[in-house]
């Protein structure tokens, strides 16, 4: 068994854990903790499922970005516009349909082209774990129909004896001639602790499977995370976190523009009281604020008739209070109240020699106030059955805040731009041991989501995906979804199997509709689309995973997923990830060396959206080889990770990659780290 492994030292691996909600209170059985590694990083898929299902998923390439780690999870896919800033989608839900938060904090991207999802602001070095919740269980995080993705920040520690620890990491990847360096320092004292980490990455244009350089795929960034923890009383902790993330010279090969500079400042203070003797065993209150500045331009692109600058700014401040209590035997109740205010503005200035600059607001200055109350109630009925109820009531208020912005939108006859939305959501889930180690979980519920600022107020936002300029519509109705999910899982010490099927019907599904009367603003655009509500769309799919400890030193992990979507007319929805399988076989040679072979398989996607002029994507199969070696000296732990990704230099692209840009070809990576 893997029991022999020194768990915290398996730094090269990434674990993917599906922990049941109730498990937060009771310790997870030892055999399942074994593989929660990659320092503190674990990727958690929180199932509504109450049975524990633990998967370890290896990613020896520790120089990977957070996005690369997450893309291994069956529920997640990424819309890729460049090597950096990939947009996470959960089961083919994207954009405003999913809630992406950083440790419970809302962050609004400042880019009208979605170049800056919140996932870029956290580096694996400061990431504790990732929680993905699907369907109804996401209502604690926000009003979303497609689930939630929350990235937990690593925390400072307390220690009875004062202690300084840290690590230095450096890595290289050949496909993009990329290097990264990371540094972490932690100081732990009995009543306080500090943790500081910094990561620097520089990546050149990568080479695809044909050996061609993919222009404008470079990027460079630095990320700093600082967190402090202070023990105020026996059970009361004050925490302060700050993240600064600066990216520059970031290329987006699938888009007509790149990013000159992107800056994020994210800060929060929180109070946490944890005491199982109190009525509320855990209470957390947090205040946070963040500011994202994004400078997009096309100065790197050759021969353009017109030059463009498109800066954007987003500011959010908010708070939440969350408490957990046990109202009765075998019951757990978590309630949460949250509120936030976000301000967005983005503009575009176009320059042509000898002409007056052309200026417009692409996001007329607007703000979104949102507040919500949510509750999650779990009840263990007897030995075999568990029930869980998730609910949320979300209020939001959108408005364009300047006369200039309102004037601009009046061009489309939009007289009133202020909108209020009240979005309720409720889901119920029941799970039961049906046969021996087979557990069945059924859940159903409804939820909704508000339109985004782009969908309400966007002003000629060009989308390279279908080549249209998009105009917002302040009269949009919220999307409402009815969904259901069914999971079967089999769990025994050596083998865990899980299969999930889900389906949802999204009413008032928002989509851009071509308006032939409008002339496109962007040169070369096909026309103008205005967002409107279609009667409904259907989304369905399935995921399966297997973790098999063949012997104590050999493990097999395999995941499979498939998504299906169709609109009111029965036509395919765009950006549907095709059938995909990732299978890894890892073998340990003693306690210090492991080798892992991996295949990544994706079927062709020939169900394409006609209205988005979507193109089919071919099937592909990739082979990866990874290995890790570790050496301990008295005070240090040395680690070497290396491997080859896409060994056969396959020329391929994933279906969610924009612009038919091929992914990297063969990539050799090496990474060395020293911990003390």
């Amino acid at each position, binding site marked *: 068994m893997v029991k022999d492994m020194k768990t915290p030292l398996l730094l090269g691996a990434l674990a993917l854990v599906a922990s049941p909600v109730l498990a937060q209170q009771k310790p997870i059985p030892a055999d399942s903790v074994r593989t929660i590694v990659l320092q503190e990083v674990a990727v958690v898929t929180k199932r509504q499922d109450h049975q524990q299902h633990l998967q370890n998923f290896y990613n020896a390439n520790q120089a990977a970005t957070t996005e690369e780690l997450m893309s291994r999870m069956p529920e997640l896919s990424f819309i890729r516009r460049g090597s950096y800033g990939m947009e996470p989608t959960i089961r083919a839900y994207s954009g405003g349909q999913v809630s992406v938060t950083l440790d419970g904090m809302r962050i609004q991207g400042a880019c009208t082209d979605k170049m800056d999802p919140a996932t870029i602001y956290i580096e694996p070095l400061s990431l504790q774990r990732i929680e993905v919740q699907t369907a109804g269980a996401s209502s604690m995080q926000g009003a979303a129909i497609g689930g939630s993705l929350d990235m937990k920040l690593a925390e400072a520690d307390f220690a009875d004896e004062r202690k300084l620890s840290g690590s230095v990491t450096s890595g290289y990847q050949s496909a993009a001639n990329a290097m990264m360096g990371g540094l972490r320092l932690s100081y732990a004292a009995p009543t306080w602790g500090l943790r500081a980490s910094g990561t620097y990455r520089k990546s050149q244009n990568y080479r695809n499977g044909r050996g061609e350089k993919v222009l404008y795929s470079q990027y460079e960034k630095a990320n700093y995370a600082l967190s402090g923890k202070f023990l105020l009383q026996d059970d009361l902790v004050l925490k302060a976190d700050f993240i600064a993330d600066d990216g520059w010279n970031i290329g987006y090969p699938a888009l007509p523009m790149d990013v000159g500079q992107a800056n994020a400042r994210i800060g929060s203070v929180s109070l946490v009281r944890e005491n199982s003797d109190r009525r509320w065993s855990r209470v957390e209150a947090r*205040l946070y604020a963040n500011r994202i500045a994004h400078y997009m331009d096309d100065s790197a692109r050759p021969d353009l008739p017109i030059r463009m600058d498109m800066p954007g700014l987003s500011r959010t401040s908010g*708070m939440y*209070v969350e408490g957990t209590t046990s109202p009765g035997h075998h019951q757990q109740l978590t309630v949460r109240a949250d*509120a936030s*205010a976000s301000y967005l503005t983005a503009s575009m200035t*176009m320059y042509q020699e000898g002409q007056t600059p052309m200026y*417009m607001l692409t996001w007329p200055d607007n703000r979104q106030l949102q507040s919500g109350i949510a509750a999650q109630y779990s009840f263990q009925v007897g030995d075999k059955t568990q029930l869980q109820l998730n609910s949320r009531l979300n209020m939001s208020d959108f408005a364009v805040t300047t006369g200039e912005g309102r*004037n601009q939108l009046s*061009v489309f006859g939009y007289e009133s731009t202020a909108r209020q939305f009240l979005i309720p959501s409720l889901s119920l889930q029941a799970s039961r041991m049906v046969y021996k180690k087979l557990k069945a979980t059924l859940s159903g519920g409804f939820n909704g989501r508000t339109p985004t600022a782009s969908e309400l107020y966007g002003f000629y936002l060009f989308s390279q995906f279908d080549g249209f300029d998009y105009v917002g519509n302040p009269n949009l109705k919220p999307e409402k979804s009815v969904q259901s999910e069914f999971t079967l899982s089999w769990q025994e010490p050596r083998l865990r199997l899980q299969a999930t099927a889900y389906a949802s019907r999204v009413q008032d599904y928002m989509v851009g509709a071509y308006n032939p009367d409008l*002339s496109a603003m962007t040169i070369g655009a096909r026309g103008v689309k205005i967002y409107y509500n279609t009667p409904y769309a259907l989304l369905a799919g399935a995921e399966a995973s297997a973790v098999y400890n063949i012997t104590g030193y050999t493990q097999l992990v395999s995941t499979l997923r498939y998504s299906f979507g169709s609109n009111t007319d029965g036509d395919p929805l765009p950006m549907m990830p095709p059938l995909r399988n990732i299978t890894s076989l890892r073998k340990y040679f003693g306690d210090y060396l492991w080798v892992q072979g991996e295949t990544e398989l994706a079927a062709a996607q020939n169900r394409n959206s006609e209205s988005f002029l979507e193109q089919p994507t071919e099937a592909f199969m990739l082979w990866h080889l990874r290995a890790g070696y570790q050496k301990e000296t008295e005070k240090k732990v040395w680690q070497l990770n290396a491997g080859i990704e896409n060994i056969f230099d396959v020329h391929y692209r994933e279906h969610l990659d924009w612009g038919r840009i091929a992914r990297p070809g063969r990539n050799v990576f090496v990474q060395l780290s020293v911990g003390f």
Partner: protein
Amino acid sequence: MKKYTWLTLWALSLITVFTTGCDKDDDTPTPTFAYQKIAEGKAAGTDFKIEVYSNEELTTGYNPIYIALFDASGKRIEQADVSFQPMMDMGMKKHASPIENPSSGQAVDGYFPGAVVFTMPSGEMGSWTLGVQVQANGQTGTFTTPVTIKEPTTSRLKSFVSKTDGAKYFVAYLQPKQPKVGVNDLEVAVYKASGMMDFPAVTNLTLALEPEMPTMDHGSPNNVNPTHTSGGHYKGKVNFTMTGLWHLHLTLSDASGEAGKLYFEVNF
């Protein structure tokens, strides 16, 4: 202690959310124009003093003109009939230009407002004079002053020869004076040359408007074609989706079909 901690936190939270939450309202008020004196003098045959005002320098195109009248004692005259007689002397020939005489005999805020549409700039081709004829307190007289008409940086007067009746038409641009991104009031005035001295307002045309951004080759949505209001003035709406150079294309038609096409530049 514990209670206060939470209370403080909530209070702080509320402050954060609501102090950052003030909406800005920056609708600029409509600017008011100053009166600029162009000339003053005695109207021949009367004891009146006439003062001629405009808002800006006189240029080719539509120029609002304001007349202030004072009697011998220097008292402002509030009741008078005022008419304009612009004249271009080109040596070989002379011609007038379209005018809009003050519509009422009653002064507005002490001024008699009207307009003159100068059809060309002063220069080597010839020079302009502006005659102002007044009739008040039983006296009638004319004050004539030379005026200098400049060509504006962007043309505010266009002309065409009608395909339907062969006459020359002048189209003057009045609005938007201060264009903004958004919906703008559009106003033009149309006159027909009936000989060299008579330029009546044209009231029976149909105008079709199409704004275009020539550098980017796109238009704008939801414009409203100008329709006739009074005195040859046509009002509609023009929408700008961004700042920069725009061409406002106008197609003018009468009962027998398309008479002509032209465009005005708007650059802001």
